[in-house]
């Protein structure tokens, strides 16, 4: 049976961060993710690198962590983020005392900010509501969580770690107070494997409680559903936050070709598959358009939901966004570490603490290197041959240093430089490059890696092209792959459809279901 020093359960930002951290310490590491990497809350958020401002008043310790990690990540993974800055805006009807409390709390938590006059704020963000009363500028940035998580996975692999997606942990065999064996199963092929770990790091996000229960342990936490809406195009230059206690529709994040409006908060009794509802989407759009009137004119292309793991006895907005690393030895399991709570912005710190705890179990004295070792070495993007050069900046921004192999695929494969996804300008070579990677099994996996299908038409025009890249490299029924993917896109579209856009989507559905005889699953909203 395979043996490994550290087994990580969960391939979101935290798990991927732990894998990289431990691998850089020279520890033999295996990561198991039950879906695709970054498919849970790590991908289902607004892609925001917090300055800390949002939590300064209610949750100063999280704010402080965000402020510190914000600086580190800028150095660590510059290609994953866009330093577009952030604005906090106070509007009529908002608590008039809040801005002063906010300013003081930010200073106390070492969150950098500067007060702007209304005129200055309007220069920074011309689309802001004309009713703007007060504004502060902060160091928010937008971040591509998929690039970040996949970058961590690749970096961990480069350092010797093994990471597998679509592997569901089934059970632990515990003997003499330690997890001796872990049984896991491939969720698509059903094939079962066992591994003997010396330490297990439970980084399953909203599902940490579920994993802990396999060791008959209970974790006191809450899970909370958050919905976001994607707008086509950018409605603001930088992030725009409402200067009031966090609530619905008070963040807009420009990201790649889109803007993301966040977010709702609704406690769930347990982690389960969630999807956005029309009511949530409408409420987000209504609130956000008070702040940025352009939101109401933009095309909403998708609504999606993620599940936040909250480390707190209280659910919802009041809950701390902080995190905790639990060593379960006091509860009778000696080699299980759980990471509970936290945020994308603080993923590296969470990973560091979890890796420290794992090292204590392993008796290793290796120190963490992730605060200073860049994710992948940054380099200048050279000019590319012919028309491919038009894609140079996009490829650099999306893939960072890993773009060289992608560029190779685009320039050398037949038809590699054909645009398949015209919304996001994704080339066939990019799709074929990722389609030939063993991690990629579904069209959704291709979307997470390349952004194909994320744009205006939500896969309507490019799904067949994506399938063409993938179908030749898989044993799965291509029709089922396509149906699964389109059902998922439809799930995200349904809550935001109306008027002309609804008409266009009906037409798309008619082509796919009528002529191509595809079955798109029922989603009632």
């Amino acid at each position, binding site marked *: 049976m395979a043996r490994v020093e550290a087994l990580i359960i969960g391939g979101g930002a935290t798990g991927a961060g732990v894998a990289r951290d431990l691998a850089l310490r020279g520890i033999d590491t295996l990561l198991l993710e039950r879906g695709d990497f970054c498919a849970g809350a790590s991908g289902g958020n607004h892609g925001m690198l917090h300055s800390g401002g949002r939590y300064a008043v209610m949750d100063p310790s999280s704010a402080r962590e965000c402020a510190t990690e914000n600086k580190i990540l800028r150095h660590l993974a510059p290609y994953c983020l866009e330093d577009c800055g952030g604005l906090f805006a106070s509007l009529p009807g908002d608590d008039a005392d809040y801005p002063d409390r906010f300013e003081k709390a930010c200073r106390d938590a070492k969150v950098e900010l500067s007060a702007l006059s209304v005129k200055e704020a309007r220069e920074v963000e011309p689309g802001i509501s004309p009713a703007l009363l007060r504004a502060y500028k902060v160091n928010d940035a937008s971040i591509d969580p998929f690039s970040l998580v996949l970058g961590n996975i690749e970096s961990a692999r480069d350092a010797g770690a093994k990471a597998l997606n679509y592997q569901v942990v089934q059970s632990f065999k515990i003997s003499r107070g330690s997890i001796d064996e872990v049984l896991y199963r491939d969720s698509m092929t059903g094939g079962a494997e066992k591994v003997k770990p010396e330490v297990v790091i439970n980084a399953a996000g909203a599902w940490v409680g579920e994993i802990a229960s396999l060791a008959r342990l209970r974790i006191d936490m809450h899970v909370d559903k958050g919905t976001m809406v994607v707008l086509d195009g950018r409605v603001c230059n930088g992030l725009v936050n409402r200067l009031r206690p966090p609530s619905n529709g008070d963040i807009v994040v420009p990201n790649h070709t889109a803007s993301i409006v966040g977010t709702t908060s609704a406690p769930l009794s347990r982690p389960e598959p969630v999807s956005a509802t029309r009511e949530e989407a409408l409420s987000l759009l209504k609130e956000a358009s008070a702040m940025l009137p352009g939101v109401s004119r933009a095309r909403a292309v998708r609504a999606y939901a993620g599940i936040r793991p909250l480390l707190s006895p209280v659910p919802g907005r009041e809950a701390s966004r902080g995190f905790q690393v639990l060593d379960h030895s006091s509860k009778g399991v000696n080699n299980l570490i759980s990471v509970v709570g936290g945020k994308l912005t603080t993923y590296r710190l969470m990973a560091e603490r979890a890796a420290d705890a794992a090292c204590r179990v392993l008796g290793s004295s290796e120190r963490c290197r992730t605060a200073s070792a860049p994710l992948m070495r940054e380099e200048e993007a050279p000019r590319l041959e012919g028309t491919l050069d038009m894609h140079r900046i996009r490829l650099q921004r999306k893939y960072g240093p890993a773009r060289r192999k992608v560029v190779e695929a685009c320039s050398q494969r037949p038809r590699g430089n054909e645009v398949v996804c015209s919304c996001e300008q994704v080339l066939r070579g990019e799709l074929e490059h990722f389609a030939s990677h063993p991690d990629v099994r579904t069209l959704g996996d291709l979307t997470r890696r390349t952004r194909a299908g994320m744009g205006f038409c939500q896969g309507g025009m490019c799904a067949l092209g994506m399938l063409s890249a993938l*179908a030749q490299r898989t044993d799965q029924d291509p029709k089922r792959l396509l149906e699964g993917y389109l059902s998922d896109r439809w799930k995200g579209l349904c809550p935001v459809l*109306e*008027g002309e856009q609804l008409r266009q989507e009906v037409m798309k*559905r*008619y082509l796919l279901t009528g002529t191509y*005889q595809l079955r798109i699953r*029922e989603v*009632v909203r």
Partner: protein
Amino acid sequence: MRELKPLHVDALVIGHGAAGLMAASSLAEDNNVAVVGKGTTATSLSTGCVSYIRKDIFKQEQGIIDLEALARSVHPFADIIERSSLTLEEVLPQVSSFLFRSLSDQGLEMTDDTFHFVDMLTNAGTRYACSIAPTFTAAGRLDRLEGEQLALLGISGQGDLDPELVAVMSARELEGVKVRPHRYAMKGLKGRSGMTSAEVAFHLRPEGNLEELAAAIRELDEDHVAIPPLFELQRLHKGMSELSTTTGRNVFELVTPMSLPGQRLQEAMERAAVGHGCRLLKNHLVTKLEVHGARVAAAIIQTPTRVQRVTFNSVILATGDLVGGGLALQGREVVDPFSAFKVGKFGEMETLPDQTGYDAAMRAFVEAGYLVTNDMRLLTREGKPFENAFGAGAALASFSFPTGVGLGGELLTAWVAAEYAREVS
């Protein structure tokens, strides 16, 4: 804006898609008819095939349609016809032979397989069934290919047929057929990408270019060769026959939506309507209908430069569904753009069969449309039948069907609406 002198016709048909042209052609046999249409029709974006029926009512073992199932439970138009004085058994062959005759006169030969399915392969590699299809589009029943070899020939730079994708998809759809993908880059089109089928069709006009394609087909080992649609209506018969005879292969087209097949059907139907004596007014917008009580008295039609008042004895609304642009949307609610007719959901058709590809959310969006009486009369907003206004095609409640699936229903209702409109024209 120039005001043209008023026009009077026996019947005005609004909408120049499959339903409008069918109703107009049928009425024009003994009436003075005008058809107005505003833009691109859903028919021209369709696969150019006509389905009356679907697989779930096809009794495989007997090779016949289960008419009873059709009439009782499946298509609302069957229900309408059953309740009227017409029977489906009467109407179906009439519509089909009228269509058959009209289209083949215009150079679009159709395979009439009303009571059998023509089983085809789409350009996505899935199987598609319909009952009337252009001869060269239909491969006939695909099971006839069993044990044979099929070549998929894509034209480089034109995306209508992605041979690798279709090969992978159809490997599961066509068991027992050996399918191989090929690509051919035409000399005169080297380096081009994103070409439409019309651009390739233009390139194939000179004799030598067609021969170049034929030579490429002769290079293939397979006896059966599928290509994307490459010929416009006027050249379809000649081009496809030539490819088959000069290569000795069975050459046929794959079903491609938003490509030449729908445009060919549209063009053939337009020509047929004109051939039957209809006045076809394309690019005309009906800006207003003059309604007096339960009678529609006149329509105001206009182009960007001209406006005209049209009076008539009867009017047929064949304006199309949401996709065709006939019905308007306010948020998520389907409304009548003329603010004259009653829009709602039809009878007991709340549970459309799954075969149409609907789900509950989709159904909620598309099942609303114009309501009609048993004799196809539209209703006033208060629910009273109009004396001289009839509805036809996809604009009717529950008649909006996915592309390709619906044209049969559209043609049938148009035929029936014309029958009743004739009585008041």
